[in-house]
């Protein structure tokens, strides 16, 4: 029973992950990403970590990917533009990332001898011991991660504000445009919330005609 579920969801995770990177339509890619996250959450549950599985769905599938979809639909991206031919910076970055990942996996296997050297026990992943570890042994890394997230939030808010606008006015009238950085070339001029310098001339021209 468990093997069947594992095989099913492992296959589902792999196939949907391939769809994420290969599909032309960004909406389908994003929905496939949801499926990938859901399948890996099922695998976490099978590994005896239901807490991680539930959080994975709650945070990633339920909130972050919804924001991806939100932005894609708001910008109305229909089809991905043709990929650049040959090796661009993106390809090299991808190869570098894959190499680092393989190196880390290799290091883990090499150090532990076998992939299942230290299997997780229900006791080690139960909620209370997990929380106790997090708030005692690993308190400093935990707080640092929290600080990092706070810095990221403040950074995003600063990046989203209009040049020359006081920070206090952010979010008073614009709830939607705050999610995209101001410098995004896709949005300049086309976003009704962020009128560019050229726009008044354009609209008066349209009214005249």
């Amino acid at each position, binding site marked *: 029973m468990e093997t069947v579920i594992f095989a099913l969801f492992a296959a589902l995770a792999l196939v949907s992950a391939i769809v994420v990177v290969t599909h032309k339509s960004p*909406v389908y890619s994003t929905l496939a990403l949801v499926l990938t996250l859901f399948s890996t959450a099922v695998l976490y549950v099978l590994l005896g970590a239901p*807490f991680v599985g*539930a*959080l994975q769905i709650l945070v990633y599938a339920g*909130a972050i990917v*919804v924001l991806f979809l*939100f932005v894609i*639909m708001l910008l109305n991206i229909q089809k991905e533009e043709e990929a650049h031919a040959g090796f661009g910076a993106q390809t090299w970055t991808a190869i570098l990332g894959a190499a680092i990942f393989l190196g880390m996996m290799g290091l883990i296997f090499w150090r532990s001898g076998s992939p299942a050297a230290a299997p997780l026990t229900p006791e080690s992943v139960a*909620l209370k011991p997990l929380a106790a570890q997090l708030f005692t042994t690993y308190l400093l890394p935990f707080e640092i991660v929290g600080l990092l997230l706070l810095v990221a939030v403040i950074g995003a808010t600063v990046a989203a504000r209009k040049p020359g606008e006081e920070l206090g006015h952010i979010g008073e009238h614009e*709830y939607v445009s705050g999610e995209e950085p101001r410098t995004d070339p896709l949005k300049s001029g086309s976003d009704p919330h962020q009128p560019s310098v050229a726009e008044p001339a354009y609209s008066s021209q349209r009214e005249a005609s």
Partner: protein
Amino acid sequence: MSPELIAILAKYAVMFAVLINVAPIMNWVERRACAYIQDRPGPNRVGPLGLFQPVADALKFMFKEDVTPSAADKPLYLMAPALALLPAFTTFVVIPFGPDITVAGRAVRLMVADVDTGVLVFLALSSLSVYSLVMAGYASNNKFSLLGSIRASAQLISYELALTIAVLAVIIPVGSFNLADVVAYQRAHVWNFLPQIIGFLVFLIASFAETNRLPFDLPEAESELVAGFHTEYGSMRFALFFQAEYTNMAALSALGVTLYFGGWSLPWIEFPHNLLGGVLGLLTLLAKIGICMAVFVWIRWTFPRFRYDQLMRLGWKVLLPLAILNLILVAAMTLAGWL
């Protein structure tokens, strides 16, 4: 099949039998109640008091022509209504619906999935319900549908935060994510809505937004968006969205009742630990859910719709700070030993 599997299937069958009937019954209640509130008779022709109206509606849905817009994104368009039902019918598994009972010499716990992370499973599964709305709006290839689903995604994320933080505050004094423990705690102390009245109000308001009910039905908003995300859906596909809405309402009511109003239990009354006790527990839970659903209907036909920016301001600037305040208050009270 092992006895455990049979027990799980039997318990899910009970839940499913209840859930599948929520939409037709609520359809009748909603229409009669709105007619009463607006001082008109409402549907009263089919059967006594119009009670067979849902049957007539169901037949109508089934025999209507099934139209798919030619410009629609076929796979997503067909998948969306089915996916709408999935979270609605699965979140129920972590809700306890009776005391621990003994049937044929076996101890049975009356919840489908007795897991440590019960509340989190509920929140995780219900957070997936936004995808069917988004898929429906995108796949219909209609600007009203797209606007509706963009609103839905922003609204659901905003209100989910407040809802989750309000729920977390309940968990602090209980010390367990398992909803059976939440009920046990309330039987030993008082119902949670008394000490956590702020959290309960935040939960109540956020659950209206989560189920897209008036005054927060911006994804549908028939006065501006035709029918919002399901504009292009007809016949049985529309009926599935309809059913998902009512089942979601029932699921969130069940969670609210379990978190704040003692779930299946009644104060000062001990149900017997046999099949009769199980039935009594289930009936108590259903009665409480019914009261919640009546409140949903009552509020829908009493309040006007919010404007979109008002909705966002309420979510982020009022409900979220209130939820965090409640969390801090409850944590402090727990630390002081008052809860």
